[in-house]
Structures are given as structure tokens and as C-alpha cells.
């Protein structure tokens, strides 16, 4: 952590020096490397002064929502996850998402495709209730065809009964 802060500090100093000497650029003396870790390259052009680079949103930022066996209602303990996901969608109004409904391996292919669809739909409805526009949310059901975790047993099943978010 200290090393990291040190590197950040060095970069900040370099940027300041570079900024000060914008009109009469002089070669900046390279600081002695603290260790073998390659220092990140100094940001050569100064960041454009207008809006700061839009922070990225990743699929991994969205939380996965879990369900009970043969159920598609959003569990109370899963609302936090969905509220967070809705927050991301509000902060990034330009992204659209696809909600994937999944099931555990128990039960039949056909019924689970319908159940996964209902899970995705109930997530969509929850997001709409939180003010997200319906046309930003697509749903798809994979039934039990794409488990997150292979294997069998309640721990595995619980992880596979889920709705996952994809950025479209």
C-alpha cells in the first residue's frame, strides 16, 4: 500500500512539474525507481479540461440476485442487490441491460425455462418500480441450461437460482 501511495505521489509530482513547464518543456529527471515494479507511464498529454472521463461501468458491478426453489419473487434479502443495480442504471443512463433468469438443475427443461423467464420478469418489474425505464431492460431465460456452478446439492443449487445482469 505504501509503495502504491508513493508511486501515486510521484506521478502527481510529475504531472505538476509537467504542467508548470508546459510552455517550455524541459526533460523531467526520471526519479529513481523504488523497486522493480514498473512505474505507470506518466500521462503525457494533460487530461482534457472539460468533463472528466466518464467512469466505466462493468457487468461485474451489477450484483446477482438469488431466488428460492420454484419461486420467482424477489426475496427481501435480495432487495439491497437490486437497489444497488438500479442505482448503477440511474448513474449510467446510457446503458441498457439484459436480465438473465436462471434455475437450478432440478425439474424439467420446459418448466425451468418458464420459471427463469418469470425470475427475469420479476427483476425487471422491480427495476421499473424503482424508476428505471422499461425499454432499457430486456429479459432472457436460460432455464437450467447455464448453471453458474456445476454440481449438485443445496449450496450449488442456491447459487444457480439467480438473475444476472448483462450490459447490452
Amino acid at each position, binding site marked *: 500500500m505504501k509503495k502504491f501511495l508513493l508511486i501515486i505521489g510521484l506521478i502527481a509530482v510529475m504531472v505538476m512539474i509537467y504542467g508548470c513547464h508546459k510552455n517550455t518543456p524541459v526533460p523531467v529527471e526520471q526519479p529513481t525507481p523504488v523497486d522493480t515494479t514498473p512505474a505507470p507511464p506518466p500521462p503525457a498529454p494533460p487530461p482534457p479540461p472539460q468533463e472528466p472521463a466518464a467512469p466505466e461501468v462493468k457487468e461485474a458491478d451489477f450484483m446477482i440476485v438469488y431466488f428460492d426453489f420454484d419461486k420467482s419473487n424477489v426475496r427481501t434479502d435480495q432487495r439491497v442487490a437490486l437497489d444497488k443495480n438500479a442505482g448503477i442504471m440511474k448513474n449510467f443512463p446510457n446503458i441498457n441491460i439484459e436480465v438473465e433468469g436462471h434455475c437450478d438443475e432440478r425439474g424439467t427443461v420446459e418448466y425451468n*425455462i418458464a420459471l427463469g423467464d418469470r425470475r427475469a420478469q420479476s427483476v425487471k418489474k422491480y427495476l421499473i418500480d424503482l424508476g428505471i425505464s422499461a425499454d432499457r431492460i430486456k429479459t432472457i431465460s436460460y432455464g437450467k441450461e447455464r448453471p453458474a456452478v456445476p454440481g449438485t446439492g443445496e449450496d450449488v443449487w442456491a447459487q444457480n437460482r439467480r438473475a444476472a445482469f448483462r450490459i447490452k
Partner: protein
Amino acid sequence: MRKISTFVHCEYHREDGRTLLRTLVARAGLLAVLLAAASVCPAQVKDFTARLETKRGVEVTKIAVDDFTVKSGSFILSSDSTTVVRVADIVRADLDFSPFYDVVLPDTFYMRHMEMSAMTLLGWSQLGAEYVARGEAEFSGAELTVKYKLFYSKSGIEFARGSFKSPSSNFRRLAHKIANEIIYYLTGEQGIFDTRICFVSDRTGNKELYLCDYDGANIYQLTGNKSINVSPSFSPEDRNILFTSYMRGDPQIYQYDVVSGATELLAAYPGVNSTGRVSPDDKLIVCSLSRDGDSELYLLDRSGKIKTRLTYSPAIESSPCWSPTGSEIAFTSDRIGNPQLYIMDKDGINVRRLTFLGNYNDSPDWSPKGDKIVFVSRVNGKFNICTIDVTGENFRVLTELGNNENPRWSPDGNHVVFSSNRSGTKEVYIMDRFGNEERRLTTGGGNTNPAWSGHGQ
């Protein structure tokens, strides 16, 4: 021409407890004899005890298939003589799979005792075989011709005969056709030994459709779109295989043309399109669509255009199948809070609940005989294949081991194909409609979702 022989086998009789006991006592007596001969033919005894367990509950008629001979004077290669042996073996395996016939095998102990070099009709009769099939093979170039005859063992009277010709490389199919015709002569019903099974396998890493013979031979890959393909079903006459595929992203209904090999998109409505099944008159498709927010059943025309919405319920409606007359549809609904089977008329009215036992009943398939529905029921946390009369009576559990799924009838209604994880991996199995004669068709795992073809062209 085919004609039903005068020896048409009467409708089977279910054994009640008393006759079952009598049969078991009789069989135990024979078993004792065979056990005495165990040192001579242990394999025979093992086979016999296995059958004692598997054919329980159903009275069977015994039939023998003599080793096929080769027409005298015809020149054959050693591979040809292997073929002849295999043809007879396939005929035996086919007939033995029938719920009402047991194949008696040559008994070396008996033959030695009787100082016989080959089984005679009288010998077969004494081993309990009522009927005996004999065949003669003839090779001419790459062609194989097999002529067979059926005898009544006691009187020695021949009552049926037939002949089949095919390229000798296609001997499996030839053998199946012989067995089909023998079953037809014995029962008046068409055999199922020349039918095929379509199933899903992930052996390539993706769930693709495969086709194999009813006995698991001749596996052939149908799809290769590297997505998810599930829920195959055959259209009447086996011209098309309908299936649900994610090949364009969303689950949509496609049909594969068995003759041309072409694949056609049938239903791509918003949301889920799944489980398309063609009506017996080949004019309608019943399927589930979620275009109105949740999974409901619809009738489409044969090109995929919506004709009628059948169900209106906030619950899941899925897994539809036709009655053999096409007048009714069985399906799954969780309208009471868990999945149960229901039956309705094909216009969506007159809905009645079929299953009341258990809290998970799904995947119905209506017997071609019309009387029973096979389905999956969760019993004590395990999924089992069960049958129930369409009246709601005679709930019967057919499987015991592992979790079992996706039962589909054979076209004669005497057998069921299903998938099970009982071996540790998911494989496709067949059994007769009493839960006997289970056979595994696939190996290597990841084999699910079977569908049995019709009698074909």
C-alpha cells in the same frame, strides 16, 4: 404381404399376487436346476436371475431365436459370419425388450444332457419357448438377404415367414425390421425396433441435437449451431423435428427437416418461445410463449403464426402435449403454487386438474394408446418417472434410482425413453411401460431431453 397369423398373441394379463407367486415358485424351481448347473454355465444363471427381477409383475411369453444359418454354397468372409451372428443377436435383443416376450437363450447344460448338437423345436419347447424364429442369411456382393420363419415349438408348425434384403453394412436395420415383423405377427401391433430417438448432448461443449436408433446405435449429430438446443419432438410421420434453440440469442422454436436437413425458424415472438409440439393431424403447433408477460400456451399454425391463446393465468403454463386424437392437451401449470398436470380441450376450455399427489409434477406425454400420461413427479425429493390414467387413477412410479426426467412414449405406447443421473452422469434410458427392461442408450454424460420418433416412413 403381411397378415396377422392365426397365432395372434392375446392381450397380456397383469399378474395378481397369486399368479405372481405361482410364477415365482415355478421360476425358483427352474432357478434351482440352473444353479445346479452354475459351474457349467454361470452366465446363463446370472442372466436368468436378472430377468427374474426385471420382468416382475407382467406375464411374458417365451420365444427363442435360433442362431441364423448361412445359405449352403454361398461364399462368405469371416466378417460376414460375424454379421450373421450379430443379426440374430439384435433380433433377440429387440424381442426381449418387448414387455410381453422373453427371449430364451440356448442352454448348453440342457443340450449336453439331451446329447444335442443344436436346439430342436422340441428342445425349445421343453425350455419353455412357445415360439421359435429361424433365419437363413445369403450374401451376394455387398447385399445381405435374410429369410426367416416362425414356428410354433410344440407342434413344429411354421406359421409365418418373411424376407429382408439390404446392403450388408446396414445389417442392424435389417435385423430391426425382422424383429418388427415378428412382433407384428405375434401381436398384430407394429414393433418399435426400427424407430429413432432424438436427444440433447453437450459432448461438443454445446447442447446440440443428436439422433440414434432406438437401441442407442448409429448416433448422428443433427445441429451444430454452438448454442443451446433443447426440447426436441417429432412431427407426425417423423418428417420434422421441432426444437427450442438459442441460436439467435433468445429461445425460439425451430424445425429441422429430416429429409432435406434444413432448419427453419417457426416462432420468434418476444420473450420465451418453447416446447413446440405438432398436432397428430400435422396442422397445428402447441407451444408456450411469454410474449404477454408470463408463460402461456398458444396454438400456432404450421408456419408459426399465432391462431389461439389457450391459457389466461398469471401462473406458469408450460410443457404442453397432445392427446393421440388431437382433441385435448395436457400441460403443466403452477397456478396452485406448485407445478401440477392439467388437461384441457384443444380450444382451451374444460380445464381439469389431473395430479393431486406431490408438489412437483411436470413433463407430461400422452400415451399413443390414449389411456395414460407419463410424467415426472418429485417423490421424497427425488424426481421419478410415473404414469397416471387420464382419469386421474392408478398413479404409478416406474423408476427408483437417481433423478429421472423427460419421459416420452414409444410410438406403440409400450415403452418410455427418459434421462437419468443414476449412474453419476446424465444418460438416456429406455424401459417398458411397467418400469421393466431398463436399458441405457448413451455414455459419457450430458445426455438429456430425449424424444421418441413415430413409426416413420
